[in-house]
């Protein structure tokens, strides 16, 4: 196993750890908006680290660019989802910001 492989293994392991942390936040946090926060941020760091790890494994530029595109689109999607759901939760709970 070469140095690049070790780097990829470390990045993928860190990504999996962030995914599990996000799930823990979803299960344990008390407020819907806190859960939203935990999930959308931690999962995206996890996805980014996994993309980085697999990009190290990928020898081609096209594959690495596709991985980067996956990460950017994932961030875009979860930013949009977090904003829409958080705004709706705020409206539904009477508009007060806790």
């Amino acid at each position, binding site marked *: 196993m070469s140095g690049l492989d070790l780097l990829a293994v470390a990045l993928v*392991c860190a990504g999996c750890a962030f995914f599990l942390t996000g*799930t823990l936040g979803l299960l344990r946090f008390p407020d819907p908006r806190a859960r939203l926060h935990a999930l959308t941020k931690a999962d995206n760091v996890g996805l980014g680290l996994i993309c980085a790890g697999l990009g190290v494994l990928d020898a081609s530029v096209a594959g690495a660019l596709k991985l980067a595109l996956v990460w950017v689109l994932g961030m875009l999607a979860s930013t*949009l989802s977090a904003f829409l759901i958080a705004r*709706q939760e705020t409206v539904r709970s009477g508009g007060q910001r806790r």
Partner: protein
Amino acid sequence: MSGFLLAAALLLLLNAVVGVVSLYASPYPADRMLAILLIGSTTVAILLLLAYRHEPPVLLEVALSFVLLAAIGSIAFVQQRLRAPPHEP
């Protein structure tokens, strides 16, 4: 390396199963939507990990289209709740 990627994918599959459990257990619509977001992003990560077990990584295209459509679920959820009457648990 192939075995490691499979192990990481299985770990994330466990993560997605926890998401499915919380999807069925949660009484609040917003929490169920969050569980769906969790399952979606975990699925993308699993597809990426499985894509790199073999060359060429064809599942990468599947993951790309999956993540492209990821926001549509929450947009539909918010739209549908805006049209619904505003009293529910």
